[in-house]
């Protein structure tokens, strides 16, 4: 019984990381219907930015967020304004092709600059400290921190979208970009802000990833896949759904790994396919679409 509870608990906490991978993807798709194939590679890019920041200044990985978040925010703004905006409004293919190309460019640039060696960020005692919940049950402080951060980030995005003026503009643009322009919204600027925000969230996910596991320039696409699965399981356009999707994916992987370590990823994909078959629009689709 405790073992089963432990499996679900660890899976849930892992789901927090997946939700952080997915939140940016969900936000971007929700606001501008852009499917960002380079999302996973941008996570890896942010991890390398953190690596450089840590190595150059000697600060810890968590503290490096003060540098990584603004840097990736600026990268996101520039990327959208300088490149991705011109791929929108021309059908579904141009953004897919351009972000696919971007994914290859980022991977190869990182390979060129940092080699294929796998890296990891060290967070010291935080990585191994744990909180005892019972005689045979404990959770690591670090996974707990990741999960609580995911909840806080998604709550924050939710407040931004539904309680602020810029959030109102984001939702208006998502509903009807042309009508939004007639209400003073500069779509190009707003889309760039959305990408900047998404990459700020990506930075947090990247630092957690880099502390939790090894990374190298080629791990982006797998992270993209987890992010996609979390978004689709949760239902497009719903941020809390994305959190739920991440948790379901995490629990499925954790249960799979418990049965046989080789089944971890497979179990996640099976859960994803099951949701697609039973609820093609995901578990919590947005009411209006």
């Amino acid at each position, binding site marked *: 019984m405790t073992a089963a509870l432990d499996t679900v608990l660890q899976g849930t906490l892992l789901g927090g990381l997946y939700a952080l991978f997915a939140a940016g993807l969900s936000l971007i798709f929700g606001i501008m219907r852009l499917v960002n194939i380079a999302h996973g590679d941008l996570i890896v890019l942010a991890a390398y930015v953190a690596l450089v920041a840590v190595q150059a200044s000697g600060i810890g990985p968590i503290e490096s967020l003060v540098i990584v978040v603004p840097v990736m925010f600026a990268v996101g703004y520039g990327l959208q304004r300088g490149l991705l905006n011109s791929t929108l409004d021309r059908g579904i293919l141009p953004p897919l092709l351009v972000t696919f190309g971007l994914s290859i460019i980022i991977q190869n640039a990182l390979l060129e600059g940092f080699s294929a060696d796998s890296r990891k960020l060290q967070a010291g005692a935080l990585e191994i400290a744990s909180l005892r919940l019972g005689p045979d049950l404990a959770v690591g402080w670090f996974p707990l921190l990741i999960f609580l951060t995911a909840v806080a980030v998604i709550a924050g995005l939710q407040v931004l979208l539904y309680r602020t*003026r810029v959030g*109102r*503009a984001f*939702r*208006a643009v*998502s*509903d*009807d970009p*042309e*009508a*939004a*322009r*007639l*209400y*003073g*919204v*500069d*779509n190009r600027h707003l889309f760039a802000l959305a990408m900047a925000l998404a990459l700020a969230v990506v930075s947090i996910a990247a630092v957690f990833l880099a502390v939790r596991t090894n990374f190298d320039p080629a791990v982006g696409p797998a992270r993209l896949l987890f992010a996609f699965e979390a978004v689709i399981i949760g239902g497009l356009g719903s941020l809390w759904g994305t959190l739920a999707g991440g948790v379901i994916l995490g629990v499925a992987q954790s249960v799979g790994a418990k049965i046989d370590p080789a089944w971890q990823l497979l179990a996640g994909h099976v859960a994803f396919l099951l949701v697609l078959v039973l609820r093609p629009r995901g578990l919590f689709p*947005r009411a*209006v679409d």
Partner: protein
Amino acid sequence: MAPLLETRGLTAFYGDFQALFGIDVAIDRGETIAIIGANGAGKSTFLRVICGLLGAEPDRVRHRDEAIGGLPANRIVARGIAMVLEGRRLFASLSVEENLRMGADVGRKGPWSLERLYRLFPILAERRRASPATLSGGQQQMAAIGRALMTNPDVLLCDEVSLGLAPVVIRELYAALPAIRAEGTAIVVVEQDINQALQVADRVYCFMEGRVTLTGTPKALSREQIRAAYFGM
């Protein structure tokens, strides 16, 4: 003195297709003009050029004696030209009140506030938290007009506001016009319903195939002249 808004020799294109051929229209403060014409005459295109959704040469559109042709839509609304799009086009995931606030977010000072607007259209106050999809067609149109008024425009462009609405609802909508004009707002209505247009307008422009074929005050124009200008026969 220059008119509040004027176009001189305005042309417009969709790709290679020319939709407008040298349109001259002028409107003063507090004036209401109606643009009538058959489907495809270029009425909506004309409004889309003025509000910045379609490009134009700068000097072909002048507002408060400054060239504004080809400015992006978000800058034109900030200057005080608001557009009520055909088909209402309310933001579906925003509540009625949030839709209205989108107008206020443009940031122009003026007579229109939520309070004032709810006095003009009391039903919107009742439905302020509702999703626009749950409103009747007439209520949606009130919200769309209200959203445009919340930008405190000096020119209000209305594209086919009566389309698909029952006559009693249309009368209710047009009954709001005097309150809007009283603020000095100039109004351009594009209408297929000629009678409605003739009733509210100070002057009428008849469009056919991208050209102005007739203009004058409703009193001065005879039915025959309008029919000829409208259908080209």
